[in-house]
């Protein structure tokens, strides 16, 4: 699956998009255009791409979640609740049951019953138990980025006059009564970083091997191309299985996570290597490289000073587009039971809880993690689209 994603993406990448009608640089900038650096030019072009900008902002927000899940989480993600399992998401209200509107958001506490016949848990809002939501409230202890101790949380329920406060479940709870919203916050850290770290790895493999292959050609090219062809020829699922089985059973969860990231990147570097190789092949023949060579530049200097900068932007765009493949890959691995396993929390692990008929029929909020996956993939694709347009040096 990652393979296919990759394939599509590379094809897209190699075809820079331009619109002749579009005025990219406005008049005031006209003069500065000629002295602007490549990066400035890129940024100006990128700004024009509204959807990409929005996507960028969304991704920034998501990565903020990944950095500070403890602050955003309302409760500890592992805390289970005897009396609050399978709670549907609380409706955050501004209008109360009597139709009065207020600016302060509030919730009604749930009353729990078990249907005597079907044994299904039923939660009904208790219209007499109105609780306001508070911001920057004190809650469970944690350490910001593992360093600074704190117990401040973004949202929480304010106690009423009697000092009691029910818990608020913004995305409901799972079968063990764990707060899905908090778990989502924690899962974001793992899932988003898997994308980044995985891409970093495939970047490393892809650029080195693709570069070697494209620059030197000959035997190196032949061997590397065969290896790539070979890896692409072996179907993905058995490779996943074999590689995840190769992770020793005694590894702690964190190392398993790392191992899975490496697996995902191991299977996806070939696409990048092919792009890099193609670029190198083309650039090798360009006049400016010839000029550099004639001027007596060393090989390393030619590669890193002249060749790499001329396609960095492509690489970045291509990387951006391959991150969603990684994130989806993680969820697919979880579906096959090969990915991360509880107690680790990732989007894939969370989605596993929502991927059965029982959940679809009776606790559909357990599929909410899927929305996060979709939004992230969407955002990355739009961002990548925008970056690619912006990175194309020929689009004025």
């Amino acid at each position: 699956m990652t393979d296919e994603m990759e394939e599509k993406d590379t094809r897209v990448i190699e075809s820079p998009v331009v619109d002749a009608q579009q005025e990219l640089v406005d008049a005031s900038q006209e003069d500065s255009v000629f002295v602007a650096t490549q990066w400035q030019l890129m940024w100006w072009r990128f700004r024009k791409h509204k959807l990409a900008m929005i996507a960028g902002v969304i991704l920034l927000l998501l990565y903020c979640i990944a950095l500070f899940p403890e602050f955003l989480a309302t409760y500890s993600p592992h805390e289970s609740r005897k009396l609050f399992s399978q709670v549907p998401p609380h409706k955050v209200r501004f209008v109360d049951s009597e139709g009065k509107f207020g600016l302060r958001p509030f919730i009604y506490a749930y009353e729990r019953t078990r249907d005597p016949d079907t044994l299904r848990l039923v939660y009904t809002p208790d219209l007499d138990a109105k609780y306001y939501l508070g911001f920057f409230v004190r809650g469970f202890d944690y350490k910001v980025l593992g360093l600074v101790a704190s117990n401040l949380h973004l949202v929480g329920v304010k106690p009423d006059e009697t000092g009691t406060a029910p818990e608020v479940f913004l995305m409901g709870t799972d079968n063990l009564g764990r707060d899905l919203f908090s778990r989502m916050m924690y899962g974001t850290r793992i899932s988003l970083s898997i994308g980044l770290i995985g891409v970093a790895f495939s970047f490393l493999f892809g650029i080195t091997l693709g570069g070697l292959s494209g620059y030197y050609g000959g035997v190196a090219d032949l061997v590397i191309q065969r290896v790539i062809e070979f890896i692409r020829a072996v179907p993905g699922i058995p490779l996943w299985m074999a590689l995840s089985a190769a992770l020793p059973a005694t590894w702690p969860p964190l190392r398993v996570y790392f191992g899975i990231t490496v697996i995902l990147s191991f299977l996806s570097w070939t696409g990048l290597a092919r792009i890099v190789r193609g670029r190198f092949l083309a650039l090798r023949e360009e006049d400016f490289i010839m000029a550099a060579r004639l001027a007596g530049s060393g090989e390393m200097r030619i590669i890193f000073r002249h060749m790499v900068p001329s396609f960095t932007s492509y690489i970045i765009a291509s990387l951006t587009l391959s991150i969603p493949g990684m994130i989806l890959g993680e969820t697919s691995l979880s579906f096959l039971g090969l990915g991360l396993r509880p107690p680790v929390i990732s989007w894939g692990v969370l989605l596993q809880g929502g991927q059965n008929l029982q959940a679809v029929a009776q606790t559909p909020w357990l599929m909410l993690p899927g929305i996060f996956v979709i939004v992230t993939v969407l955002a990355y694709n739009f961002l990548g689209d925008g970056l690619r347009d912006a990175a194309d040096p020929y689009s004025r």
Partner: protein
Amino acid sequence: MAIEKKLNRRDFLRGTAIAAVGVMAASCAQPTPIIVEKEVPVEKVVKETVVVEKQVPVEKIVKETVVVSKEIAIEKVVTATPVPPKFFEAPMLAELVKAGKLPPVEDRLPVDPMVIAPVDTIGTYGGTWRMVASGTSDFSGHSSRVNPVEGFITWGMDGASIVPNLASKWEIGDNGASFTFYLRKGVKWSDGKPFTAADVLFLHEDVYKNTELTPNYPGGFKMAGEPAVVEKLDDYTFSIKFAAPYGLFPLNMAADFSGWSEVPAHYMKQFHASYTAKANLDKMVADNKLETWMQLYSAKGNWMNNPEKPLLRPWLMVQPPPETTLILERNPYYWKVDPDGNQLPYIDRQRHTLVESVDVINLRAVAGEIDNQMRNIALASYPLYKENAAKGGYDVYLWKMAETGACFFPNQTLLKDDVLRGIMQDIRFRKALQYAIDTDEVNELHYVGQASDMTSCVPDELKGEKIFEEYTYDVAKANALLDEMGLDKKGPNGWRLRPDGQELSLTVETAASWTTVVPVAELVAGYWQKIGINAVLKSLMYEGWWDRVGTSEYQVIAYLLENFDPLINLTYPRNYFVTSYDCYWGTLWGAWYNAGGKAGEEPPDWVKELQTAYDGVKGETDPAKQIAVMNDAFKVWLESHNIVHTVGRYPQPVIVKTSFKNFPKDGVNGWPLRSPGYSRPEQYFMTA
């Protein structure tokens, strides 16, 4: 005698154990008994026993009688009744008879067909029983439950007693070292050939003792290291002799060694090297794209893939894999009838659809496309089934699982960490782990609030000991116990410190595929963290499981106790009697016992006591006595609190179409019983 006292399972067990003896006695007296179940006061049985039974010492019986007469009110006793005067058959078979393709029903049935009393009413013929399996191996497991293998002897419909089946009676001799089985005369394989002692002999002499087919003679038939000696006394009688008393043999015969009636010698001989010329065999091997004749023999012996193989079961394969809709049809030679003389089974066909995911099984269930099934029907989905029951035209019965909820096995023979081993061997530690678990919460969250507590699994005789009641959720008590052990110092991360100054951490290991256990294990790891133990759950891929267990380097295993019931669990004793390395709480001790002291580690005396008790059970022929020994061992086992438990038995939902009849409302789902097999699928029927 208190008739109004409600009969529970355990009372039942006791009484029926006695009753079984009675049957043997009764059968000795009457040469052609037809079996029908009838309610009779128990004293009568006891009297009979004393009068006729020769093998069992009279004092023993009398001693038991005293106990029994106090507890048992009413007992089902098997007595002889006359054969129904006339036999009837299904319309689809009657047509074949008319067309001359099949002999008349009287000729197909044995002289003394087994008479099965239906659960509710006499049924009607016809219908297709629809079921769903998640693949071929799931089907083969499922089919051994809904199209059960016919043992010589089998479980009674109470799920506790052992009753005649293919053998109309059996005798125990030599103080439990020899067994004689009397087969029903005239039982025929599904191809019309007679089933005789020759079939049994073929299996034992040419399969089990053939080192090419069976490299190691099956351990279940070895006593004192010696293989059994099987002798044919006449066409319908054979004896099995062991080198030492083997009291559990009848139990094992009923539960697990049922394959003895699955080998039609007249058919299998053509694939056997001792009976068929090599040239012919080689040709067949090549034709089937196989390599050896043993492979050919196994392949031909598999009824699922080889519809030609004759069987004694109620239904026969007519549409085998690789089709994904498997169809089974009635066995025209099936040898059981109902009290009115109707040849069983009532239902014409079974249809098993192979699907690829459990979700599709659930979908088919709620869509009303399953007539009766409990396999892959999960308690967690009960609300889903129930809410769609009216729409799908089915009911959901709640049977009970034979197993407990998730249990935790601290490894008392842990290697490579002596300090932790010492801690785990301290009973206070194991008790602290127990007190820390909020079992009510586990029940609410994972068992839909429907599991009973662990006391439900304790034999009645031991209930007075209050062994489980004292373990109610009590964090303070758990902490106190740990403090008392000297684990009161805390490290920088807030975890308790071990005597050697290290953090007290516990890795709980379980297999990711044990989906009923993993969520509970997650909960329990959380409970243990609350008492200052850094408990981490690790779910492994199952493939490396046994290797991992063998190393004895795991700290705690999360699993469950199978078949927590004295009689049934005698068939699978590892976690009670520490009899093999897969005793999760004492791997090396179990290995020691199994290898006769040549492997593993020598256990402490109290463990040896358990193991000796098992030796005792094995040598005991009287089921009641077996239970008594088992219970004594239980006491030791319970007192040493080797297993940290959560909940006891929990319900097993069963989808039952409203048109599906004679299926018991209540029952136990356990493998030794081949549930629902013990409730006789052949007498289920479907109304139009």
